[in-house]
């Protein structure tokens, strides 16, 4: 990918006819106000790197910048980057602009100092509000600014986090003003949303632009996440603590990001039902029993984290989590810190900085007035047209029905009267802010660079010494118009990477933070029971889909080969019965044309056993395993069904062939993406169990009574055993030899007996809970089943014998579920009170 793209100095690419847009695509970039543009307003040595990057991009795609976007989009898709807007059913692809926002390291360091000061200030405010509350009793902060926040957790007053830090991670939105000055727009201490996207943006951009990032002297982001991890770990009681990322679950807007972060940090992604508090300690339910958790990276609102201490209706929290927090559990960030996020708080921060830190804010926030004060209210009334009016605590309030901010100038007379009515009754619900005008940045749109308004999100974390470190990067939100103050990405917004550069590329590189190599690990921390459950069922659904395709393919082939022949009809009828019994075709399909039935079994999502329905099930489960699957497996699962012409035998066989290949490739990808530990075992056990079950069901339906050669041959097809049979017997299929191969021969990898051997091997490798040396129930059951199979004679196998094996197999599956998954503990009900009269 190295292409030697960096230009060799000023004047590069220009000739008698002016600059060549190919080598200097920014030459004709003209923002409305050049000082208020981050590129045109940049110092010469920084601006040079902007041009260098832009021409590098142009060079890479032969001056067709529009194709660059397509190229980058593909990388974004490959990374599996996705997000949701609130209310989205499906995840969306993450919109990333190829042109980063570039800031010199000296300027970034200045910003960083201001942000560290602000982080310290917020920490002090939070510590006071959950401690002595002197800021309130001494009149520095009105009580209503605290109690008005839905994030103020009164239950936590008087509690101190282990290690003393309320904040470990801090995200902050910044705006560059028209004169190049920076302002804080919003503090984010509850959820550092975007931190994972910053990481992935860099990865996507790095992959698609080769050495361009390095050529302009971009600082690497390495070290930040390790600092974050160590900063949390150092506060834990145990020396080698176990950490987990605590997620609200896969329906959460930023679940993809949470999964990505968990994987990046190598920590388990856990939901409330994976966790339990016993005697004041937090444990994860894992396949190896309860495992203690020392620290949680919390991505869930305080209100939901503990139904016994906060909202008793929460179904996603952990009862008594707060008690564990009082006894040494580290939670980052500490619950309740969101109290400083209200829109009212910035009104007080400049004064609090002076009274707490004894110095002014280095980095101002947008000037803010809280209307709970009489003077402020009067000011807002007098300057209404020039201010942005907000709901102080982000709730819907009279005059701002959706809780969103609006410029005062946008109110009609009636709207303003309504707002004033609300303000006269509940002034504490309102704030006003100065209007912050945003700088522009060159963004790629339709193959050209266009000026677009932008904001930045920066991220800070505490390291092991408790000091704040700033991520050398971040991400920029670029918007055509719109309000850039929503949580992550508004509709139509795009993101850009934020590059912090050392302009003297040839000079000495800045010292990278010294990195301790991570502790060598072989498994991804621990395997929560729920993840094991999901892996098992991913294996089962994937395999069932795979086997169903094989049945459909055999059916289509039988129709093609045998046409109207009587023998063929029998086999076709039995295959159709099999598909019906698997739920792939409806009961009323007995009179259908076989091809119609095959098409239904392939693609009709109304049939729970159709290939498409099973595939969708598998991908829904995969979504919950996002942190454990490789990108390749992830992509393979998301692939859509191949097209075919219903009724056209050749096209249907082709589609089946492709699906069989695809499912085979998928199970290989899945299997290879997991290290050979318990995760892999659960996936494989799911596959083996399902395969065994499908073989039994096929044998049961294909063979009863007098099976024709076609029937038996179809059964052999299902287990991929045609050629093996012919090499062994050189004759047409007979019942006993076929049964021996399909059911009893432990050396036939698609046969039933072989699945049992595999399952037993996997079970033997799993952690044992019993300490009396006796085998656990699943092991006992699989051994019984094997013994029974070994004792069978192929000539004696009848329907009852097959049914018996089927029952034992489903008992085995139940035993695996009971032993390793959540069965007994799962549903959490709440006591409902009806004591009132």
């Amino acid at each position, binding site marked *: 990918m190295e292409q030697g793209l960096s230009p060799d100095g000023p004047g590069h690419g220009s000739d008698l006819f002016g600059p060549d847009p190919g080598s200097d695509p920014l030459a004709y970039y003209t923002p409305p106000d050049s000082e208020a543009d981050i590129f045109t307003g940049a110092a010469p040595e920084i601006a040079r790197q902007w041009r260098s990057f832009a021409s590098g991009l142009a060079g890479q795609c032969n001056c067709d910048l529009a194709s660059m976007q397509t190229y980058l989009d593909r990388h974004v898709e490959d990374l599996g980057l996705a997000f949701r807007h609130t209310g989205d059913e499906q995840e969306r692809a993450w919109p990333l602009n190829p042109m980063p926002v570039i800031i010199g390291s000296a300027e970034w360091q200045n910003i960083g100092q201001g942000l560290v000061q602000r982080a310290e200030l917020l920490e002090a405010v939070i510590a006071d509000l959950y401690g002595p509350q002197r800021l309130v009793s001494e009149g520095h902060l009105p*009580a209503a600014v605290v*109690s008005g926040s839905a994030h103020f957790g*009164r*239950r936590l007053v008087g509690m101190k986090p282990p290690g003393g830090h309320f904040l470990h991670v801090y995200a902050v939105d910044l705006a560059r003003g028209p004169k190049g000055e920076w302002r804080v727009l919003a503090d984010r201490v509850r959820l550092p949303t975007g931190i994972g996207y910053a990481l992935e943006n860099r990865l996507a951009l790095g992959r698609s632009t080769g050495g361009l990032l390095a050529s302009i002297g971009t600082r690497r982001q390495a070290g930040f996440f390790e600092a974050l991890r160590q900063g949390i770990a150092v506060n834990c009681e145990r020396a080698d603590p176990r950490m987990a990322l605590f997620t609200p679950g896969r329906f959460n807007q930023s679940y993809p990001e949470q999964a990505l972060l968990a994987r990046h940090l190598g920590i388990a992604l856990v939901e409330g039902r994976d966790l339990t508090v016993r005697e004041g300690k937090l444990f994860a339910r894992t396949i190896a029993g309860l495992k203690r958790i020392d620290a949680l990276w919390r991505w869930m609102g305080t209100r939901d984290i503990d139904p016994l201490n906060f909202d008793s209706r929460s179904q996603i929290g952990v009862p008594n989590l707060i008690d564990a927090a009082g006894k040494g559990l580290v939670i980052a960030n500490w619950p309740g810190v969101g109290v400083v996020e209200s829109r009212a708080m910035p009104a007080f921060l400049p004064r609090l900085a002076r009274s707490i830190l004894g110095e002014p804010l280095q980095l101002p926030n947008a000037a803010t007035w809280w209307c709970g004060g009489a003077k402020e209210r009067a000011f807002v009334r007098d300057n209404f047209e020039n201010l942005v009016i907000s709901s102080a605590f982000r709730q*819907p309030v009279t005059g701002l029905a959706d809780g969103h901010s609006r410029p005062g100038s946008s109110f009609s007379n009636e709207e303003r009267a309504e707002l004033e009515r609300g303000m006269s*009754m509940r002034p504490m619900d309102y704030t006003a802010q100065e209007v912050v005008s945003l700088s522009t940045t060159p963004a790629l749109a339709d193959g050209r660079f266009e000026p677009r308004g932008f904001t930045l999100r920066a991220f800070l974390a505490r390291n092991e010494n408790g000091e704040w470190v700033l991520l050398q990067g971040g991400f920029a939100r670029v918007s055509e118009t719109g309000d850039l103050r929503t949580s992550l990405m508004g509709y139509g917004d795009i993101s850009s990477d934020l590059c912090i550069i050392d302009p003297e590329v040839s000079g000495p590189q800045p010292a990278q933070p010294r990195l301790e190599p991570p502790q060598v690990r072989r498994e991804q921390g621990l395997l929560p029971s729920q993840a094991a459950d999901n892996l098992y069922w991913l294996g089962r659904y994937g395999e069932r889909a795979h086997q169903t395709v094989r049945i459909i393919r055999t059916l289509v082939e039988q129709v093609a080969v045998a046409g109207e022949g009587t023998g063929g009809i029998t086999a076709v009828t039995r295959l159709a019965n099999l598909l019906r019994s698997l739920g792939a075709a409806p009961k009323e399909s007995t009179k259908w044309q076989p091809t119609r039935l095959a098409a239904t079994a392939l693609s009709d999502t109304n049939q729970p056993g159709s290939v498409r329905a099973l595939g969708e099930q598998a991908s829904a489960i995969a979504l919950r395993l996002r942190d454990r699957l490789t990108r390749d497996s992830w992509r393979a699962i998301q692939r859509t069904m191949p097209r075919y012409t219903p009724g056209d035998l050749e096209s249907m066989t082709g589609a089946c062939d492709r699906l069989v290949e695809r499912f085979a490739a998928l199970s290989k990808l899945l299997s290879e993406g997991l290290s050979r530990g318990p995760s892999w075992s659960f996936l494989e056990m799911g596959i083996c169990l399902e395969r065994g079950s499908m073989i039994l069901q096929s044998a049961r339906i294909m063979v009863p009574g007098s099976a024709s050669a076609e029937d038996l041959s179809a059964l052999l097809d299902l287990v991929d055993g045609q050629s093996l049979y012919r090499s062994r017997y050189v004759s047409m299929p007979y019942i006993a030899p076929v049964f021996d191969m399909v059911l009893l021969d432990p050396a036939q990898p698609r046969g039933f007996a072989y699945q049992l051997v595999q399952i037993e091997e996997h079970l033997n490798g799993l952690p044992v809970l019993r300490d009396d040396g006796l085998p656990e129930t699943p092991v006992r059951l699989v051994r019984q089943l094997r013994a029974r199979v070994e004792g069978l004679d192929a000539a004696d196998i009848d329907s009852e014998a097959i049914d018996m094996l089927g029952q034992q197999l489903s008992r085995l599956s139940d035993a695996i579920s009971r032993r390793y998954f959540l069965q007994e503990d799962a549903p959490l*009900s709440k*006591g*409902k009170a009806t004591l009132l*009269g």
Partner: protein
Amino acid sequence: MIYSVRHATRVTYSAPVVRAQFNLRLVPSIWKGQTIRKQHLGFKPVPDLREDYYGPYCVNRTHITFGGSLSQFEFLSEFEVEIEALADPGEGPAIAEVGAEALEQRDLSPLSPAPYLFASRIAGTDEEIDRWASDHLPLDAGIARSASVLMGAIHRDFTYKPGSTDSATSPSEAFSRREGVCQDFAHVMIIALRSHGIPAAYASGYLRTLPPPGKPKLVGADAMHAWVNVWCGKELGWIGFDPTNNCLARLDHIQIGMGRDYADVAPIDGTFIGSAPQDMKTAVDVIEV
């Protein structure tokens, strides 16, 4: 006035549940005009763990844990309380004044007005309640008088109908149907007051079982009762208004706790594993000693 209070409840599960944990809010918290004696809260079976806390609102919380499986449990709360009648509040300061004063208090404690100024989970905002109430709450009128008028309006316009609502019914729904029980009336009144910037809290407690001679029996006397505490300015502080009985909470009301809404003072909530339908039998006796 001295009362003896006895509150017995039996909870039965149709199938045993495990890892049951409950919060009970039955031990009376400190309240002006009330002196508590001989207070006791007992359980059968005896829980494996019992912890008592005060807060985070004006409420005592008893947290109990049963380690084994549980198919039935009983609790019995008993205490004696002496009640001193508070003075008649009169008109009270103007509503606008009360609102301004509430914002000036440098206090976040459970008794301060600040925690009760804002919408809470159950007592959220509701534009219709807001509009309906605004006639009764002109900003220049006296707070105690206006709160009484509002209380009277609820008493007049709403039908008391046990069983018409349960703990999951929202105040907005009860409001639109104009019916409910004490809990619904209290929530509607709280929402109305808060929308006008007045700190208002949910009070839970008991009523005397038998009326004073010559008076009718109070509604809601056979179970726990709910009413509204209104912060009437720094001088008057909290005053109880009972919209179910259209009277001030003075000599006949025994307060257990005060929170933003029902959820903060719910007599019992908790978690357990098992999804059994359950039966809860309660007997409350409040006898004048």
